[in-house]
């Protein structure tokens, strides 16, 4: 009775072909968008039909594991006075706990991947993660803007986070000369970068206010939520837990600091590998007007890159090592990306779409190369 896409599917993707930007692989032969859309929709429907008990058990198992890892980490950190080795193991466990919470649980649950479970706590509305960024703010910027307007210049604020120049579509500025240092700092402080992200774009504190921006949320509320979530994080990790440890205050404070740092570096690295490898493409807003579902899939495919690895590696990245599949099917339970990946690759091959994947080292080297390359005009 109601069709969601039919009015769009007949539009010819003429703009795409006309926009040939230098310095990146061209969009070459155009795929048959309608067929591509149908194939990927079909794959999604087929996989979602299988989603059930197994997936519910899996996410509960991961949540249970997270509790175990995080709390044994916190306890071992205090036992640092017995042996520094215990402290070091504790820090690693706490970092692992935070990574599990942020990536395999937080990121995925907040994407709505487990909303079908009807669980009061495991759903995109209720979940709040252990990171400085307020969940609702992340949901607005990431789930909507980044996933709908993936890698569209000017629309996807995740693209370089407004700090890095990663394509010639952005004008070169002098500050880009030292953007490698900026990148390192961003990685170190990644949780705060993400937390501040929406406010930076909304020019809450600095910069010229943009008139045409539609405000979904007031600046006052943004500020209030930013400070309240940020303060909660700081107070928990750097006041409450250290105080609970009494004489071992410093052990715990430093341990928490290192754990947070490790988490920041890991999440930042994985995310950069997913979107800013050498061949990940950017798009112009005009290209994407009146996109059909097939064209949308195509853009998701070209804007993302995967990382090869074993099962535990995938879990530790929240399955963002399957960034391509995640961008095609953002609300599919992430563990399912493992089984759809070969099929996606097949479909891509059929349409001559490049399936961007590689080892962690290869993809990361490619990211670093890109950051350095675009430091210069």
């Amino acid at each position, binding site marked *: *009775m*109601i069709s*969601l*896409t039919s009015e769009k599917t007949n539009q010819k993707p003429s703009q795409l072909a006309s926009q040939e930007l230098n310095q990146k692989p061209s969009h070459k032969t155009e795929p048959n968008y309608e067929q591509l859309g149908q194939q990927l929709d079909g794959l999604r*429907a087929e996989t*979602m039909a299988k*989603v*059930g*008990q*197994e*997936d*519910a*058990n899996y996410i*509960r*198992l991961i*949540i*249970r594991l997270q*509790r*175990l890892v995080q709390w044994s980490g916190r306890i071992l950190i205090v036992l640092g006075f017995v042996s520094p080795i215990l402290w070091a193991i504790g820090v690693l466990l706490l970092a692992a706990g935070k990574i599990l919470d942020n990536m395999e649980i937080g990121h995925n649950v907040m*994407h*709505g991947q487990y*909303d*079908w*479970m*009807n*669980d*009061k*706590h495991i*759903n*995109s*509305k*209720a979940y*709040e*993660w*252990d990171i400085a960024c307020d969940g609702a703010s992340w*949901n*607005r910027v990431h*789930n*909507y*803007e980044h*996933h*709908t307007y993936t890698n569209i210049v000017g629309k996807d604020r995740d693209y370089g986070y407004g700090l890095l120049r990663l394509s010639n579509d952005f004008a070169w500025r002098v500050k880009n000369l030292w953007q490698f240092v900026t990148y390192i700092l961003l990685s170190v402080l990644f949780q705060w970068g993400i937390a501040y992200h929406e406010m930076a774009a909304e020019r809450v504190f600095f910069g010229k206010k943009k008139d045409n921006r539609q405000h*979904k949320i007031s600046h006052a509320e943004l500020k209030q939520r930013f400070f309240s979530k940020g303060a*909660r994080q700081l*107070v*928990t990790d750097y006041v*409450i837990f250290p105080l609970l440890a009494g004489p071992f205050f410093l052990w715990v404070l430093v341990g928490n600091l290192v754990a947070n740092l490790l988490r920041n570096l890991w999440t930042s690295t994985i995310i950069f590998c997913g979107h800013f490898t050498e061949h990940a493409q950017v798009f112009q807003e005009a290209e994407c007007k009146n996109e059909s*579902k097939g064209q949308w899939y195509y853009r998701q495919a070209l804007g993302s890159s995967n990382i090869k690895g074993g099962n535990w590696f995938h879990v530790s990245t929240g399955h963002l090592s399957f960034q391509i599949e995640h961008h095609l099917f*953002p*609300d599919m339970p992430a563990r399912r990306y493992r089984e759809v990946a070969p099929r996606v690759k097949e479909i891509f091959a059929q349409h001559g779409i490049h399936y961007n994947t590689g080892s962690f080292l290869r993809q990361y080297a490619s990211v670093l190369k890109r950051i350095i390359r675009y430091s210069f005009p």
Partner: protein
Amino acid sequence: MLGVASGKLSSWISRQILHYSSVGGYLETVIQLVKPNWRDGYYRAEIVAVKKLHANTVEVQLKVPSYWPVHKAGQHLELTLEIDGRLVTRLFTIASSPSLAKSKRLVRLVVKSQPHGILTPKLEALALGSWVNVSKPSGDFTFQFNLQPEQRALFLAAGSGITPFIAMLNAMLNNMLDDQSRSNKHERDANVSALHLVYYAKPGEHLLLDELEVIAEQLDFFTFELLTRTKDGELSKKLPTLNADALYVCGPSPFYHAAAEFAKRENLPIYAEHFSLIPTTPDEQQTFTAQLNSELIELTNAEPVLTQLLAKGRQLTYGCKMGICHQCQCVKKSGVVKNLRTGEVSDRGEELIQLCVSQLMTDVELEA
């Protein structure tokens, strides 16, 4: 005092440190290691008996925890089962007396299974000793013990709509036995002078007949008759032949409407609980009432809910409008919608829906 303080402390801990609405929610998966199916915000009940009463009717006995607030006869509870990873909730009227719940912590449900239902067909396969989740009792379909002497109350039941009446009658029976044991043997429940039950069901499908007979034997003011539509005609034809001062109705919507019409005409008080089946896909344009927070809005099934609400100028958070970003997600408290992206038809109960891909199939209650 101590309870309030510890409650405050635990809610502070859960908010500040755990980012959860409750400590129980944060620890749920860990607690489940020891207590299977333990869930934050639900009561856990053990299956102690499952009996098939009929080809399509099953009786389930639950043992509720001691802190479960005992129901009033006629109330229902929500039963939640995890079915293929998904928590599915249905309302069922409790078909046993409050005193049974108080003394033995037993609650009985008598459920007619729906041929294409999600939850009801699973009930007969429930293993003894397994755990399910229930809510506290609710509902205001209870017997109002306020009839004058010489007044007559009429119970109208259809199919599995007999359950609240069984609970009420059992409660009356228990009250009477209690009164007798408290030595005023000759006085009977002075507030009720006559109670008559008219029970409609398909031929041979009247439920709990032996129980009704026992009750009728012991409660001398209670009588009942069993009817079938094919043999005895519609309820609307039957009603004028009955003598009543108040109506109690439990059955499907058309059954209720027949009774309501009669009550209106005769100016009689009517108390009711009625249920309807999940509709099939509507082919023609229909208009429904959507309750958004506290506001009532008329919407059709011709366009997704979000499109219509935005067109009517409602301020809502939304994003991609194609069912991907989950920005327009809201809680559907009740009603049925169809997901236009997957073609799936929702349950009647509470769940999260994406407004941009939801088509109305019934009236709905939304919390955005």
